[in-house]
Protein backbone atom coordinates (compact mmCIF):
# COMPACT_ATOMS: atom_id res chain seq x y z
CA UNK A 1 0.00 0.00 0.00
CA UNK A 2 2.81 2.38 0.96
CA UNK A 3 4.47 1.68 -2.35
CA UNK A 4 1.22 2.33 -4.19
CA UNK A 5 1.04 5.73 -2.48
CA UNK A 6 4.71 6.72 -2.69
CA UNK A 7 5.94 5.23 -5.96
CA UNK A 8 4.52 8.10 -8.03
CA UNK A 9 6.74 10.51 -6.10
CA UNK A 10 9.79 8.99 -7.76
CA UNK A 11 8.79 10.97 -10.83
CA UNK A 12 9.71 14.68 -10.70
CA UNK A 13 6.77 15.38 -13.05
CA UNK A 14 4.37 13.96 -10.49
CA UNK A 15 6.03 15.84 -7.63
CA UNK A 16 5.67 19.14 -9.48
CA UNK A 17 2.07 18.32 -10.39
CA UNK A 18 1.33 17.49 -6.76
CA UNK A 19 2.91 20.75 -5.62
CA UNK A 20 0.83 22.65 -8.19
CA UNK A 21 -2.40 21.03 -6.97
CA UNK A 22 -1.64 21.62 -3.28
CA UNK A 23 -0.86 25.27 -4.04
CA UNK A 24 -4.09 25.65 -6.03
CA UNK A 25 -6.11 24.00 -3.24
CA UNK A 26 -5.25 26.91 -0.95
CA UNK A 27 -7.10 29.29 -3.28
CA UNK A 28 -9.67 27.03 -4.95
CA UNK A 29 -11.06 25.51 -1.73
CA UNK A 30 -12.13 28.66 0.14
CA UNK A 31 -12.96 30.49 -3.09
CA UNK A 32 -15.43 27.74 -4.02
CA UNK A 33 -17.25 28.14 -0.70
CA UNK A 34 -17.62 31.87 -1.25
CA UNK A 35 -18.63 31.46 -4.88
CA UNK A 36 -21.42 29.07 -3.88
CA UNK A 37 -22.56 31.20 -0.93
CA UNK A 38 -22.78 34.19 -3.27
CA UNK A 39 -24.55 32.08 -5.93
CA UNK A 40 -21.88 32.74 -8.57
CA UNK A 41 -21.38 29.14 -9.73
CA UNK A 42 -22.61 30.03 -13.22
CA UNK A 43 -20.18 32.95 -13.38
CA UNK A 44 -17.33 30.59 -12.44
CA UNK A 45 -18.27 28.22 -15.23
CA UNK A 46 -18.71 31.08 -17.70
CA UNK A 47 -15.45 32.88 -16.98
CA UNK A 48 -13.52 29.63 -17.16
CA UNK A 49 -15.00 28.59 -20.50
CA UNK A 50 -15.10 32.08 -21.97
CA UNK A 51 -11.34 32.53 -21.73
CA UNK A 52 -10.63 29.94 -24.47
CA UNK A 53 -10.01 32.46 -27.30
CA UNK A 54 -7.32 34.15 -25.19
CA UNK A 55 -5.62 30.82 -24.56
CA UNK A 56 -5.73 29.83 -28.24
CA UNK A 57 -4.45 33.21 -29.41
CA UNK A 58 -1.53 32.90 -26.98
CA UNK A 59 -0.77 29.46 -28.41
CA UNK A 60 -1.01 30.78 -31.99
CA UNK A 61 1.48 33.59 -31.43
CA UNK A 62 3.71 31.56 -29.13
CA UNK A 63 3.02 33.69 -26.06
CA UNK A 64 2.89 32.23 -22.52
CA UNK A 65 -0.44 30.57 -21.64
CA UNK A 66 -0.59 32.82 -18.59
CA UNK A 67 -0.80 35.95 -20.77
CA UNK A 68 -3.50 34.37 -22.90
CA UNK A 69 -5.41 33.40 -19.79
CA UNK A 70 -5.27 36.94 -18.41
CA UNK A 71 -6.43 38.45 -21.70
CA UNK A 72 -9.12 35.81 -22.13
CA UNK A 73 -10.46 36.31 -18.61
CA UNK A 74 -10.57 40.08 -19.03
CA UNK A 75 -12.50 39.85 -22.31
CA UNK A 76 -14.81 37.18 -20.95
CA UNK A 77 -15.50 38.99 -17.67
CA UNK A 78 -16.07 42.37 -19.33
CA UNK A 79 -18.45 40.85 -21.90
CA UNK A 80 -20.30 38.86 -19.25
CA UNK A 81 -20.73 41.99 -17.14
CA UNK A 82 -22.06 43.81 -20.22
CA UNK A 83 -24.53 41.22 -21.53
CA UNK A 84 -25.76 40.35 -18.04
CA UNK A 85 -27.19 43.87 -17.87
CA UNK A 86 -29.38 43.36 -20.94
CA UNK A 87 -32.87 43.04 -19.49
CA UNK A 88 -34.34 42.07 -22.88
CA UNK A 89 -32.45 38.76 -22.88
CA UNK A 90 -32.18 38.16 -19.16
CA UNK A 91 -28.75 37.77 -17.63
CA UNK A 92 -28.56 33.96 -17.86
CA UNK A 93 -29.52 33.86 -21.54
CA UNK A 94 -27.16 36.71 -22.41
CA UNK A 95 -24.23 35.11 -20.60
CA UNK A 96 -24.94 31.67 -22.10
CA UNK A 97 -25.03 33.04 -25.65
CA UNK A 98 -21.90 35.14 -25.13
CA UNK A 99 -19.87 32.35 -23.53
CA UNK A 100 -20.95 29.86 -26.20
CA UNK A 101 -19.83 32.36 -28.83
CA UNK A 102 -16.44 32.77 -27.13
CA UNK A 103 -16.00 29.02 -26.84
CA UNK A 104 -16.91 28.59 -30.51
CA UNK A 105 -14.45 31.33 -31.48
CA UNK A 106 -11.75 29.59 -29.45
CA UNK A 107 -12.47 26.30 -31.21
CA UNK A 108 -12.41 28.01 -34.61
CA UNK A 109 -9.03 29.63 -33.89
CA UNK A 110 -7.64 26.35 -32.59
CA UNK A 111 -8.56 24.53 -35.77
CA UNK A 112 -6.93 26.92 -38.27
CA UNK A 113 -4.25 25.12 -40.33
CA UNK A 114 -1.34 27.00 -38.74
CA UNK A 115 -2.41 26.35 -35.17
CA UNK A 116 -0.04 24.32 -33.02
CA UNK A 117 -1.54 21.06 -31.80
CA UNK A 118 -2.19 22.32 -28.28
CA UNK A 119 -5.98 22.48 -28.16
CA UNK A 120 -6.14 19.40 -25.93
CA UNK A 121 -3.68 20.99 -23.50
CA UNK A 122 -5.68 24.20 -23.43
CA UNK A 123 -8.96 22.42 -22.81
CA UNK A 124 -7.79 19.83 -20.31
CA UNK A 125 -4.55 21.29 -18.98
CA UNK A 126 -1.12 19.73 -18.70
CA UNK A 127 -0.58 18.96 -15.04
CA UNK A 128 2.48 16.81 -15.64
CA UNK A 129 4.02 19.55 -17.76
CA UNK A 130 4.15 22.30 -15.12
CA UNK A 131 7.62 23.70 -14.50
CA UNK A 132 9.20 25.77 -11.79
CA UNK A 133 7.96 29.03 -13.28
CA UNK A 134 4.39 27.73 -13.40
CA UNK A 135 4.68 26.72 -9.76
CA UNK A 136 6.00 30.13 -8.76
CA UNK A 137 3.21 31.94 -10.62
CA UNK A 138 0.55 29.65 -9.14
CA UNK A 139 2.00 30.16 -5.64
CA UNK A 140 1.93 33.95 -5.92
CA UNK A 141 -1.60 34.03 -7.37
CA UNK A 142 -2.99 31.43 -4.94
CA UNK A 143 -1.43 33.15 -1.93
CA UNK A 144 -2.85 36.47 -3.06
CA UNK A 145 -6.33 35.02 -3.46
CA UNK A 146 -6.21 33.17 -0.13
CA UNK A 147 -5.03 36.27 1.74
CA UNK A 148 -7.66 38.46 0.09
CA UNK A 149 -10.41 36.00 1.00
CA UNK A 150 -9.16 35.82 4.58
CA UNK A 151 -9.03 39.62 4.85
CA UNK A 152 -12.50 39.98 3.30
CA UNK A 153 -14.13 37.19 5.23
CA UNK A 154 -16.46 39.41 7.28
CA UNK A 155 -17.79 41.67 4.49
CA UNK A 156 -18.12 38.66 2.17
CA UNK A 157 -20.19 36.91 4.83
CA UNK A 158 -22.46 39.91 5.34
CA UNK A 159 -22.90 40.46 1.60
CA UNK A 160 -23.91 36.83 1.10
CA UNK A 161 -25.99 36.33 4.24
CA UNK A 162 -27.92 39.58 4.38
CA UNK A 163 -27.29 41.89 1.41
CA UNK A 164 -30.28 44.14 2.24
CA UNK A 165 -28.75 45.08 5.60
CA UNK A 166 -25.13 45.16 4.40
CA UNK A 167 -24.96 48.94 4.07
CA UNK A 168 -26.20 49.48 7.62
CA UNK A 169 -23.57 47.01 8.81
CA UNK A 170 -20.82 49.01 7.09
CA UNK A 171 -20.40 46.70 4.08
CA UNK A 172 -20.62 47.70 0.42
CA UNK A 173 -22.15 44.49 -0.87
CA UNK A 174 -21.88 45.32 -4.57
CA UNK A 175 -18.21 46.20 -4.22
CA UNK A 176 -17.44 42.91 -2.49
CA UNK A 177 -19.33 40.99 -5.18
CA UNK A 178 -16.95 42.53 -7.71
CA UNK A 179 -13.94 41.69 -5.55
CA UNK A 180 -15.11 38.09 -5.39
CA UNK A 181 -15.49 37.89 -9.17
CA UNK A 182 -12.03 39.41 -9.62
CA UNK A 183 -10.57 36.78 -7.29
CA UNK A 184 -12.41 34.14 -9.28
CA UNK A 185 -10.78 35.47 -12.46
CA UNK A 186 -7.32 35.40 -10.86
CA UNK A 187 -7.87 31.85 -9.60
CA UNK A 188 -9.07 30.74 -13.02
CA UNK A 189 -5.87 32.14 -14.55
CA UNK A 190 -3.80 30.28 -11.94
CA UNK A 191 -5.66 27.01 -12.42
CA UNK A 192 -5.94 26.83 -16.19
CA UNK A 193 -2.31 25.85 -16.77
CA UNK A 194 -2.75 22.65 -14.81
CA UNK A 195 -6.36 21.73 -15.32
CA UNK A 196 -7.25 23.47 -18.55
CA UNK A 197 -10.13 25.58 -19.65
CA UNK A 198 -12.81 22.90 -19.19
CA UNK A 199 -11.74 21.29 -15.92
CA UNK A 200 -10.46 24.26 -13.89
CA UNK A 201 -13.90 25.07 -12.55
CA UNK A 202 -14.23 21.58 -11.00
CA UNK A 203 -11.45 22.26 -8.48
CA UNK A 204 -13.17 25.51 -7.48
CA UNK A 205 -16.78 24.42 -7.17
CA UNK A 206 -16.76 20.74 -6.20
CA UNK A 207 -14.73 20.94 -2.94
CA UNK A 208 -16.75 24.00 -1.90
CA UNK A 209 -20.01 22.17 -2.54
CA UNK A 210 -18.82 19.14 -0.56
CA UNK A 211 -17.67 21.31 2.34
CA UNK A 212 -20.98 23.16 2.51
CA UNK A 213 -22.76 19.81 2.59
CA UNK A 214 -20.62 18.59 5.47
CA UNK A 215 -19.93 21.65 7.65
CA UNK A 216 -22.47 23.64 9.63
CA UNK A 217 -20.28 26.70 10.21
CA UNK A 218 -18.36 28.95 7.85
CA UNK A 219 -14.87 28.53 9.36
CA UNK A 220 -14.90 24.73 9.23
CA UNK A 221 -16.41 24.86 5.72
CA UNK A 222 -13.51 27.01 4.47
CA UNK A 223 -10.90 24.72 6.04
CA UNK A 224 -12.67 21.58 4.87
CA UNK A 225 -12.97 22.86 1.30
CA UNK A 226 -9.22 23.47 1.22
CA UNK A 227 -8.54 19.98 2.55
CA UNK A 228 -10.96 18.39 0.07
CA UNK A 229 -9.41 20.29 -2.84
CA UNK A 230 -5.99 19.00 -1.76
CA UNK A 231 -7.39 15.48 -1.31
CA UNK A 232 -8.90 15.61 -4.80
CA UNK A 233 -5.50 16.56 -6.16
CA UNK A 234 -3.68 13.75 -4.37
CA UNK A 235 -6.31 11.11 -5.21
CA UNK A 236 -6.56 12.26 -8.81
CA UNK A 237 -2.80 12.12 -9.32
CA UNK A 238 -2.57 8.64 -7.81
CA UNK A 239 -5.37 7.36 -10.02
CA UNK A 240 -3.82 9.03 -13.03
CA UNK A 241 -0.45 7.42 -12.32
CA UNK A 242 -1.67 3.90 -11.65
CA UNK A 243 -4.49 3.77 -14.20
CA UNK A 244 -2.54 5.74 -16.81
CA UNK A 245 -5.35 8.22 -17.43
CA UNK A 246 -5.20 12.00 -17.93
CA UNK A 247 -4.14 13.70 -14.69
CA UNK A 248 -6.34 16.81 -14.95
CA UNK A 249 -9.45 14.81 -15.72
CA UNK A 250 -8.71 12.38 -12.87
CA UNK A 251 -8.35 15.27 -10.40
CA UNK A 252 -11.58 16.89 -11.62
CA UNK A 253 -13.46 13.60 -11.35
CA UNK A 254 -12.14 12.97 -7.83
CA UNK A 255 -13.31 16.44 -6.77
CA UNK A 256 -16.75 15.83 -8.24
CA UNK A 257 -16.90 12.35 -6.67
CA UNK A 258 -16.18 13.84 -3.23
CA UNK A 259 -18.97 16.37 -3.77
CA UNK A 260 -21.29 13.51 -4.73
CA UNK A 261 -20.33 11.46 -1.67
CA UNK A 262 -20.88 14.47 0.61
CA UNK A 263 -24.56 14.43 -0.29
CA UNK A 264 -24.84 11.05 1.44
CA UNK A 265 -23.51 12.40 4.76
CA UNK A 266 -26.16 12.84 7.48
CA UNK A 267 -26.96 16.48 8.25
Amino acid at each position, binding site marked *: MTGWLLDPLDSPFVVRALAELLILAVACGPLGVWIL*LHRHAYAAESISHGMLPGLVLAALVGAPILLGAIGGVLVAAAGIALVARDVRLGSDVGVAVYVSALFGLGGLLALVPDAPARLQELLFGDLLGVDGTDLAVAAVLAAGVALALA*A*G*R*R*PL*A*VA*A*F*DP*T*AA*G*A*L*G*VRAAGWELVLLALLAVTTVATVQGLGNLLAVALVLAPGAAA*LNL*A*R*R*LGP*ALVLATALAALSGVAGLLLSYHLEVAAGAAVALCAVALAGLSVLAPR
Partner: protein
Amino acid sequence: MSQVVVRGLQGGYAPGRAALTDVSFSAAGGEVVAVLGPNGGGKTTLFRALLDELPWRRGEVGLSGRPAYVPQGDRTRLDFPLSALDAVLMGAYARTPWFRRIAARDRAAARAALERVGLAAEAGATFGALSGGQRQRVLIARALLQDAGVLLLDEPLSGVDSVSAARIIALFSALQAEGRTLLVATHDVGQAAGWDRVLCLNGRQVAFGPPATVLGTETLRQTYGAELVVLPDGTAAVGVGHHAH
Protein backbone atom coordinates in the same frame (compact mmCIF):
# COMPACT_ATOMS: atom_id res chain seq x y z
CA MET B 1 -34.01 66.70 20.48
CA SER B 2 -34.78 65.14 17.08
CA GLN B 3 -32.72 62.13 16.10
CA VAL B 4 -34.33 61.88 12.68
CA VAL B 5 -35.09 64.92 10.52
CA VAL B 6 -36.37 64.55 6.97
CA ARG B 7 -37.25 67.56 4.83
CA GLY B 8 -38.62 67.48 1.27
CA LEU B 9 -37.32 63.98 0.61
CA GLN B 10 -37.85 62.39 -2.76
CA GLY B 11 -35.99 59.45 -4.16
CA GLY B 12 -36.06 56.35 -6.28
CA TYR B 13 -34.08 53.64 -7.98
CA ALA B 14 -33.24 55.60 -11.15
CA PRO B 15 -32.46 59.30 -11.60
CA GLY B 16 -35.62 61.35 -11.97
CA ARG B 17 -37.94 58.39 -11.35
CA ALA B 18 -39.20 59.03 -7.85
CA ALA B 19 -40.67 56.11 -5.94
CA LEU B 20 -41.34 58.41 -3.00
CA THR B 21 -41.94 62.17 -2.89
CA ASP B 22 -42.75 65.02 -0.51
CA VAL B 23 -41.70 63.34 2.74
CA SER B 24 -41.04 65.62 5.70
CA PHE B 25 -41.09 64.53 9.32
CA SER B 26 -38.98 64.38 12.43
CA ALA B 27 -38.71 62.01 15.37
CA ALA B 28 -37.22 62.63 18.79
CA GLY B 29 -35.20 60.27 20.92
CA GLY B 30 -37.44 57.77 22.68
CA GLU B 31 -40.16 57.90 20.04
CA VAL B 32 -41.58 54.99 18.08
CA VAL B 33 -42.84 55.98 14.63
CA ALA B 34 -45.11 53.58 12.76
CA VAL B 35 -44.56 53.73 9.00
CA LEU B 36 -47.79 52.66 7.34
CA GLY B 37 -48.40 52.13 3.66
CA PRO B 38 -49.46 49.61 1.05
CA ASN B 39 -47.09 47.26 -0.74
CA GLY B 40 -44.98 49.45 -3.01
CA GLY B 41 -46.05 52.54 -1.06
CA GLY B 42 -42.47 53.55 -0.25
CA LYS B 43 -41.79 52.17 3.25
CA THR B 44 -38.66 50.29 2.23
CA THR B 45 -37.68 53.14 -0.11
CA LEU B 46 -37.83 55.53 2.87
CA PHE B 47 -35.55 53.23 4.85
CA ARG B 48 -33.14 52.98 1.91
CA ALA B 49 -33.10 56.78 1.74
CA LEU B 50 -32.33 57.03 5.47
CA LEU B 51 -29.53 54.49 4.99
CA ASP B 52 -28.20 56.59 2.08
CA GLU B 53 -28.53 53.61 -0.24
CA LEU B 54 -30.91 55.00 -2.84
CA PRO B 55 -29.36 55.50 -6.28
CA TRP B 56 -31.21 58.80 -6.52
CA ARG B 57 -32.23 61.06 -3.66
CA ARG B 58 -33.19 64.71 -3.16
CA GLY B 59 -34.00 66.65 -0.01
CA GLU B 60 -32.55 66.76 3.46
CA VAL B 61 -31.97 63.77 5.73
CA GLY B 62 -30.45 64.22 9.16
CA LEU B 63 -29.71 61.34 11.49
CA SER B 64 -27.85 61.09 14.77
CA GLY B 65 -25.25 58.59 13.62
CA ARG B 66 -25.48 55.54 11.41
CA PRO B 67 -28.85 53.83 11.89
CA ALA B 68 -29.26 50.10 12.47
CA TYR B 69 -31.49 48.30 10.00
CA VAL B 70 -33.53 45.18 10.67
CA PRO B 71 -34.74 43.60 7.43
CA GLN B 72 -37.55 41.12 7.23
CA GLY B 73 -36.18 37.77 8.41
CA ASP B 74 -37.02 36.04 5.15
CA ARG B 75 -34.61 38.30 3.22
CA THR B 76 -31.61 36.52 4.73
CA ARG B 77 -29.99 33.36 3.32
CA LEU B 78 -31.26 30.52 5.44
CA ASP B 79 -28.67 28.04 4.13
CA PHE B 80 -25.75 30.22 5.22
CA PRO B 81 -23.59 28.21 7.64
CA LEU B 82 -23.67 30.37 10.75
CA SER B 83 -25.09 30.30 14.28
CA ALA B 84 -27.46 32.80 15.85
CA LEU B 85 -24.49 34.23 17.77
CA ASP B 86 -22.47 34.56 14.55
CA ALA B 87 -25.34 36.51 12.99
CA VAL B 88 -25.53 38.88 15.97
CA LEU B 89 -21.76 39.44 15.91
CA MET B 90 -22.11 40.94 12.43
CA GLY B 91 -23.33 44.00 14.32
CA ALA B 92 -19.76 44.53 15.53
CA TYR B 93 -18.05 44.15 12.14
CA ALA B 94 -18.11 47.86 11.27
CA ARG B 95 -16.05 48.76 14.35
CA THR B 96 -13.66 45.79 14.14
CA PRO B 97 -10.58 46.08 11.90
CA TRP B 98 -10.30 43.16 9.47
CA PHE B 99 -7.09 41.92 11.06
CA ARG B 100 -8.51 41.83 14.61
CA ARG B 101 -10.68 39.25 16.32
CA ILE B 102 -14.06 40.42 17.53
CA ALA B 103 -13.42 42.07 20.91
CA ALA B 104 -14.34 40.13 24.06
CA ARG B 105 -16.65 42.94 25.14
CA ASP B 106 -18.50 42.73 21.82
CA ARG B 107 -18.88 38.96 22.24
CA ALA B 108 -20.29 39.54 25.70
CA ALA B 109 -22.58 42.27 24.34
CA ALA B 110 -23.77 39.91 21.59
CA ARG B 111 -24.71 37.26 24.15
CA ALA B 112 -26.45 39.93 26.23
CA ALA B 113 -28.39 41.07 23.16
CA LEU B 114 -29.52 37.51 22.50
CA GLU B 115 -30.60 37.25 26.11
CA ARG B 116 -32.55 40.48 25.74
CA VAL B 117 -34.57 39.03 22.88
CA GLY B 118 -35.07 35.79 24.79
CA LEU B 119 -32.73 33.64 22.73
CA ALA B 120 -29.73 33.10 25.02
CA ALA B 121 -30.23 29.35 24.86
CA GLU B 122 -30.25 29.41 21.06
CA ALA B 123 -26.89 31.21 20.69
CA GLY B 124 -25.25 28.13 19.19
CA ALA B 125 -28.21 27.09 17.03
CA THR B 126 -27.95 27.32 13.26
CA PHE B 127 -29.66 30.54 12.14
CA GLY B 128 -31.57 28.89 9.31
CA ALA B 129 -32.97 26.23 11.64
CA LEU B 130 -34.69 28.80 13.87
CA SER B 131 -38.35 29.72 13.47
CA GLY B 132 -39.27 32.88 11.56
CA GLY B 133 -39.99 34.76 14.77
CA GLN B 134 -36.72 33.64 16.34
CA ARG B 135 -34.78 34.70 13.24
CA GLN B 136 -36.41 38.12 13.43
CA ARG B 137 -35.36 38.42 17.07
CA VAL B 138 -31.78 37.45 16.18
CA LEU B 139 -31.70 40.25 13.61
CA ILE B 140 -33.02 42.67 16.22
CA ALA B 141 -30.28 41.47 18.60
CA ARG B 142 -27.76 42.25 15.85
CA ALA B 143 -29.16 45.79 15.67
CA LEU B 144 -28.83 46.06 19.46
CA LEU B 145 -25.15 45.15 19.18
CA GLN B 146 -24.71 48.00 16.69
CA ASP B 147 -25.82 50.25 19.55
CA ALA B 148 -27.38 52.77 17.16
CA GLY B 149 -29.52 55.67 18.30
CA VAL B 150 -31.94 55.09 15.43
CA LEU B 151 -33.36 51.70 14.47
CA LEU B 152 -35.18 51.07 11.19
CA LEU B 153 -37.31 47.93 11.40
CA ASP B 154 -38.90 46.62 8.20
CA GLU B 155 -42.11 44.81 9.15
CA PRO B 156 -40.55 43.10 12.18
CA LEU B 157 -43.89 41.63 13.25
CA SER B 158 -44.97 40.20 9.90
CA GLY B 159 -45.41 36.45 10.03
CA VAL B 160 -43.82 35.99 13.46
CA ASP B 161 -45.27 33.75 16.17
CA SER B 162 -47.14 35.30 19.09
CA VAL B 163 -44.31 34.67 21.58
CA SER B 164 -41.82 36.46 19.34
CA ALA B 165 -44.28 39.30 18.67
CA ALA B 166 -44.80 39.86 22.40
CA ARG B 167 -41.03 39.83 23.01
CA ILE B 168 -40.42 42.29 20.19
CA ILE B 169 -43.14 44.72 21.31
CA ALA B 170 -41.84 44.61 24.90
CA LEU B 171 -38.35 45.28 23.60
CA PHE B 172 -39.59 48.36 21.72
CA SER B 173 -40.74 49.84 25.04
CA ALA B 174 -37.36 49.15 26.62
CA LEU B 175 -35.52 50.74 23.68
CA GLN B 176 -37.81 53.76 23.91
CA ALA B 177 -36.92 54.12 27.57
CA GLU B 178 -33.25 54.15 26.57
CA GLY B 179 -33.91 57.17 24.36
CA ARG B 180 -33.59 55.37 21.02
CA THR B 181 -35.75 56.27 18.05
CA LEU B 182 -37.55 53.45 16.27
CA LEU B 183 -39.09 53.63 12.80
CA VAL B 184 -41.23 50.54 12.35
CA ALA B 185 -42.74 49.65 8.99
CA THR B 186 -45.99 47.81 9.57
CA HIS B 187 -49.37 47.01 8.10
CA ASP B 188 -50.98 46.69 11.52
CA VAL B 189 -53.08 49.79 12.14
CA GLY B 190 -53.93 48.57 15.64
CA GLN B 191 -50.27 48.40 16.65
CA ALA B 192 -49.56 51.77 15.03
CA ALA B 193 -52.27 53.30 17.20
CA GLY B 194 -50.25 52.39 20.29
CA TRP B 195 -47.06 54.13 19.23
CA ASP B 196 -46.02 57.80 19.37
CA ARG B 197 -46.26 58.92 15.74
CA VAL B 198 -47.65 57.54 12.52
CA LEU B 199 -46.21 58.25 9.06
CA CYS B 200 -48.54 57.26 6.23
CA LEU B 201 -46.96 56.73 2.80
CA ASN B 202 -48.40 55.92 -0.59
CA GLY B 203 -45.71 57.01 -3.02
CA ARG B 204 -45.83 60.32 -1.16
CA GLN B 205 -46.41 61.37 2.42
CA VAL B 206 -50.13 61.19 3.11
CA ALA B 207 -49.97 62.17 6.76
CA PHE B 208 -47.70 62.39 9.78
CA GLY B 209 -48.58 62.98 13.41
CA PRO B 210 -49.95 61.41 16.57
CA PRO B 211 -52.07 58.30 15.99
CA ALA B 212 -55.23 59.98 17.27
CA THR B 213 -54.90 62.64 14.55
CA VAL B 214 -53.66 60.49 11.69
CA LEU B 215 -55.50 57.20 11.96
CA GLY B 216 -58.84 58.33 10.58
CA THR B 217 -60.68 56.42 7.91
CA GLU B 218 -60.11 59.08 5.25
CA THR B 219 -56.34 59.17 5.80
CA LEU B 220 -56.15 55.40 5.74
CA ARG B 221 -58.25 55.33 2.56
CA GLN B 222 -55.78 57.73 0.91
CA THR B 223 -52.93 55.56 2.17
CA TYR B 224 -54.21 52.12 1.28
CA GLY B 225 -56.82 52.78 -1.41
CA ALA B 226 -58.58 49.56 -2.38
CA GLU B 227 -56.63 47.54 0.21
CA LEU B 228 -58.54 49.27 3.01
CA VAL B 229 -61.54 47.48 4.45
CA VAL B 230 -63.90 49.42 6.72
CA LEU B 231 -65.57 47.05 9.16
CA PRO B 232 -69.21 47.41 10.24
CA ASP B 233 -68.20 48.95 13.57
CA GLY B 234 -66.41 51.73 11.73
CA THR B 235 -62.87 50.51 12.37
CA ALA B 236 -60.47 50.16 9.48
CA ALA B 237 -58.58 47.03 8.55
CA VAL B 238 -55.95 46.54 5.89
CA GLY B 239 -55.94 43.47 3.69
CA VAL B 240 -52.50 43.01 2.19
CA GLY B 241 -50.54 40.26 0.54
CA HIS B 242 -46.90 39.56 1.20
CA HIS B 243 -44.85 42.27 -0.39
CA ALA B 244 -41.44 42.26 -1.91
CA HIS B 245 -40.50 45.69 -3.14
